[in-house]
Structures are given as structure tokens and as C-alpha cells.
């Protein structure tokens, strides 16, 4: 009986320490989808990434690694503090994604954007189903990660 109780509390502690794992897992899946998706665009389809695309890559690629590391327990403890390192990266990335979207959709004139002449960031190379563009996908990925991380932070970290 006592043994059984003991195991139950242990299980409870274990689940408490595992809390939020699912959220981080989803964040990781989004980051991985962005990583492989962007590599598909550039390496398979041969769309050259413009300067702004590169800046967005800079901030999403490390997320795929950081979330992965965060999901694995240190001892028996899941590293809850993963949110501290990933949220700033995602926030900066979202900034670039929004900026890129504005350049793309013409709100920011081409002359103001920092792309090289040969590779315009405003040129639309790909439209999935007629309206989904790459900056839109990027905004979606970053926003989803940020929302999940904020929920995670409120529920489990503080």
C-alpha cells in the first residue's frame, strides 16, 4: 500500500515536472516545419533567399535546436527555463517577418528596404493557393510560437 502511494506521488511529481512539455513540443514542430520548409524553398525549388529571408532564418533555426534541448530532461527535470531563451529570439524574428511582409505588400517602398539589387525582397516568388506568401508563413510560424510560449510562461514558468 505504502509502496503504491509512493509510486503515485512520484508519478505526480514527475508529471508536474513534465508540465508544459506538450506546448514546447508543438513549438519545436513549428520551428522544424519552418526550417525544413525554408530549406525546401531554397535548396529544392531553387528560390534564392533574399536578405530579409536570411534574417528570419537566423532567428528561427536556433529555435529548432533550443526547443529540442529544452524538451529533454536534465536529470529528471524538464528545463522549464527554455522560454527565457526562445521568446526573445522569436520576438525579434517576428519583427523581421512583419517588416518583410510590409515590403512585400508594398507598404514600405522598395527603395527603403535593405535588399541587394539583384535579389529584391519585394518580388513575390511563390504564392501557395493564390495568396499564401513566404513572409506570411513566417509571420504565422513566429506568432504561433510566441503565443504558445506566452501561455507556457504564464502557466508553468512563473
Amino acid at each position, binding site marked *: 500500500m505504502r509502496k503504491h502511494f509512493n509510486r503515485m506521488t512520484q508519478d505526480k511529481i514527475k508529471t508536474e515536472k513534465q508540465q508544459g512539455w506538450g506546448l514546447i513540443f508543438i513549438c519545436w*514542430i513549428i520551428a*522544424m516545419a519552418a526550417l525544413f520548409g525554408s530549406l*525546401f524553398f531554397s535548396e529544392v525549388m531553387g528560390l534564392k533567399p533574399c536578405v530579409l529571408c536570411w534574417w528570419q532564418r537566423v532567428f528561427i533555426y536556433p529555435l529548432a535546436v533550443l526547443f529540442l534541448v529544452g*524538451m529533454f530532461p536534465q536529470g529528471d527535470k524538464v528545463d522549464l527555463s527554455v522560454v527565457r531563451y526562445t521568446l526573445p529570439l522569436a520576438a525579434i524574428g517576428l519583427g523581421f517577418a512583419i517588416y518583410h511582409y510590409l515590403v512585400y505588400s508594398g507598404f514600405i517602398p522598395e527603395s527603403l528596404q535593405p535588399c541587394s539589387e539583384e535579389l529584391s525582397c519585394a518580388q513575390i516568388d511563390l504564392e501557395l493557393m493564390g495568396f499564401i506568401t513566404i513572409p506570411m508563413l513566417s509571420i504565422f510560424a513566429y506568432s504561433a510560437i510566441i503565443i504558445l510560449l506566452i501561455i507556457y510562461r504564464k502557466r508553468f514558468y512563473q
Partner: protein
Amino acid sequence: MKKNMIVIATAILFVVLFIVTATIYNNQKDKELSSASLENIEHIQRDYSPIIGPLDAKVTIVEFFDPACGTCSAFYPFVKQLMKDNPGKVNLVLRYLPLHQNSDVIVSILEAARIQNRFWETLERAYETRDLWIEHHVSRPKKLWQQLGGLGLDMVKLNNDVQSAEIARRIKLDILDAQQLNVTKTPGFFVNGKPLVHFGYQQLQQLVESEISANY
């Protein structure tokens, strides 16, 4: 731990999905490319282009190139070797696709040298001295000019011919044809009108050999 398995399985799934979609995409693209070049057959070869090798050869390699392109320069001896290995059966047509900055001027120097029957010598000299006239991926025509001694070129005539309207017209048409054929990188090869879809020495050799066995 169960979660470890989930993570590993997801990671594997991503990789497999990537490889599968990439393969499907590439296969489809290959088909599109081959059929597109068949429709555009008149864009592949123009009668004004420089040609080397026997004129009656039944296998023709068309190469879109940029003299400033390192890979073009690396492929040049290989293509010549292909012609040597199959004597009398293969010839080579060169077409211009100056992608580097200022390379259009380099190309017009080559065309001007062709008027003096020094095209291939000048091209080889340009390839040999690439490091001396390219700075940070930008071609420096004046620096190439300094390397052209000893080729027997009449430099005054060369200087006049570089400006020629006919040369400009040819280069422009070559670039337009390349766009039409979807050649965006150099060197871009076609063998008897068939595009080299997967780039590489071996792939080019195989394509040439398959055309030789089909035509001889």
C-alpha cells in the same frame, strides 16, 4: 522514455517527408524541363555562335557560359576531353550568359577576338588568368585587356569591334534565349537539345555518351 521516442519519431518524419517531397518535386521538374526545351528547340542553337569540333558531328553540346564563372572554367578542359575521347562525333557550341557584373564586356571582347579568328585562344587565356581580372565576383575588363598579349590580336581593331552593334545584338539574343530556356546558372548544358538536368561531370558524360550511341 516515451517522449524521447515521440521526439525522435517526429524528427525522422520531418527528414523522410523532406526527402520524399523533394524527390517528387525534382522528378516533376525534370519532366517539365525536358518538355520545355523540346518546345523551345529553336532557342538552343543560333547559327552565329562560336563552334569547335567537326561540323558534321552528330552530337552537339551547347554550353551557356560566363567567362568569369569558375565552374565554367573547370568544365572547359573536361568538355574538350569529351570531344577528344569521341573523335569526330562531338562538337561544342558556346553561348553567352554573362551573369557576373561587367561580364557582358568580357564577352564582347571574346566576340571581338572572334572577328580576328582568335576566339578560342582568347577564351583559354581568359580562363587561365581569371584570378587576375575578377575582383570580388566583379569582372574587370581592363585587367583582362592587360592579359591579352602574345595572342596575335590587333588591339586597336579589337577595341573598335568591342563596341559593335552586331556583337551587342548577339549577346542580348543569347541572354534572351537563356531566359526562355530557363538557364539561370552557368554552365548550362544542352546535348542535342536535351538539357543537362542534374549538374555534374559524370551526368554530362552520360548524356553525351547516350546521344553518341543513339546517333552512331
